[in-house]
């Protein structure tokens, strides 16, 4: 069957016809017609959101956010958590000092989560806070060598926040849900 120009040929389109089961000519929509491209872009955006969301969840898997029981919050957004770890937020809503504590063990257990939360690798994060301290713009996070001691530090320090392995004993502290 010969291909004939589409019914849009009077508009100068050159898309070929396609044919249904009865061999009836049916205008074939091109891949780059507007409705299709919007749909494709929506699918791409949806996949990207799911992918990014999945990545965020995956990176914090096995790690939880804990705070001292004096902290007036039960949950925190990812953006607010990043503001804390990048020094933009220095005080909790009730005026308490935000005291960041880091797990400083040799294995780097929480490094991936720290990267995800702050957008900085472990070395850059250390350098970043050294800049804050020596320029008079912030206080250096406390570094604790093991998870149990870190939890104990957070439990005893008002305003403290930390990332700890999810299997740590969280006695005396409050876990923050990331919303």
């Amino acid at each position, binding site marked *: 069957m010969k291909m004939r120009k589409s019914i849009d040929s009077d508009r100068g389109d050159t898309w070929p016809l396609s044919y249904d089961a009865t061999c009836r000519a049916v205008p074939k929509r091109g891949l780059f017609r507007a409705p299709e491209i919007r749909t494709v872009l929506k699918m791409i955006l949806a996949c990207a959101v799911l992918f990014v969301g999945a990545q965020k969840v995956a990176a914090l898997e096995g790690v939880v956010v804990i705070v001292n029981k004096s902290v007036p919050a039960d949950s925190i957004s990812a953006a607010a958590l990043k503001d804390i770890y990048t020094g933009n937020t*220095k005080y909790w809503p009730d005026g308490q*000092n935000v005291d960041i504590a880091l797990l400083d063990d040799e294995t780097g257990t929480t490094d991936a989560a720290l990267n995800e939360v702050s957008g900085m690798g472990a070395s850059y994060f250390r350098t970043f806070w050294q800049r804050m301290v020596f320029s008079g713009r912030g206080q250096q996070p406390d570094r604790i060598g093991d998870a149990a001691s870190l939890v104990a530090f957070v439990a005893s320090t008002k305003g403290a926040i930390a990332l700890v392995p999810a299997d740590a004993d969280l006695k005396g502290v409050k876990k923050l849900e990331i919303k």
Partner: protein
Amino acid sequence: MKTMKDKIIRWLAVVLVLAAITGARLQAADLKLFGTNGPPVDFHGFVSQGFLYSSDYNYLGDNSSKGSFQFTEAALNASFNPLPRTRISAQAFTYDVGDTGKYDVILDYAQVEFTFNDYFGIRAGRIRRPQGLYNDIQDVDVARTFILLPQGIYDARWRDFYVSLDGGEFFGTIPLKLAGSLSYEFYGGMINPSMDGGAALEISGSLPASGQLDSIDSAEEFGGQLWWNTPVDGLRFGAAGGVVPVFNFDTTIQTPGGPFNPNNRNEAAFQQYSAEYLWKAWTFQSEIYLRDYYPETATMPDTHLLTWYGSVEYRFNKWFEAGGYYTEYYGDLTQTDNSLLYQKDAALALRFDATEWWTFKIEGHYIRGTGLLQDNADNPVQGDNGWWMLAIKTTFSF
């Protein structure tokens, strides 16, 4: 001649080195100076010792053409939160870079900071002045990859002029929803150039043999720094500007007709634009800096200078980081071909973080032009268009 200050600083460095050798871990001190119920006081500090060698000139370090250890910096700070949303902090600093600093112990910053919320805060006292990526930490070796930052912007000898001022600033971060956020700092106050500082050195170097610099006045400075933290993770752009409405210094020129005191009043202004992108283990940075001088005396021409650079850094692992930059400085934009007035520098650096508190760096520079030398007495012949510099530095910090 070693002064008492000199000896104290060197002994402090020896103590820190011995502590490192014995394996003692330097830890930030967190002391309950105000009793168990009082706020803890955080202490931090560092000591840096460097070595400079240049193939042709005496640059930065005194007598660096033979190798110079006159490249020392040390600081000690303390901070605490006495009340909600309030922080008090102070830092003492001492340095010796070539003919500047001379181990004078200075109050680097001493400030009270009150943060109303994330959007607005006030800082007052002696503060570190924000400008670009590095001005507020240009003498903190541990906080960057390179030993020598692009000197056309961050001249190690000019810290007394650029780094701190007595006054205050407003600061905060404004969320822009889908557009990221905007961080700002606007400041005003007095800068206090030292007779042992880079400005004094440059002025003295520009005087005729019969002239002398008598004094440099403190001067008002106003300015600000904006950072657009874009929605793209790790990407931000900055813009800074400032003005010193009246910068004055007194000189005496001996003439056959008697001493002459010229009018040295100037207005100075600057702009700086910055870009930074952090991607995985990579850091990409670029800045451009423009400075203008407007002498009050009609017979003296206005001066416009420009510096720009681009840099790349890569962190291999927790021990090693490497970086490189290329920078061009033009001391007079009307004479960009004059090697006496420009300085172009290609640098490669390697940083080794032996421990959390001990850093070692080595860096090489290939330099064309001598626009930043300034020390005319130590460099009577200038303009070489191809010379080398080696810098080595180690820092202990806690």
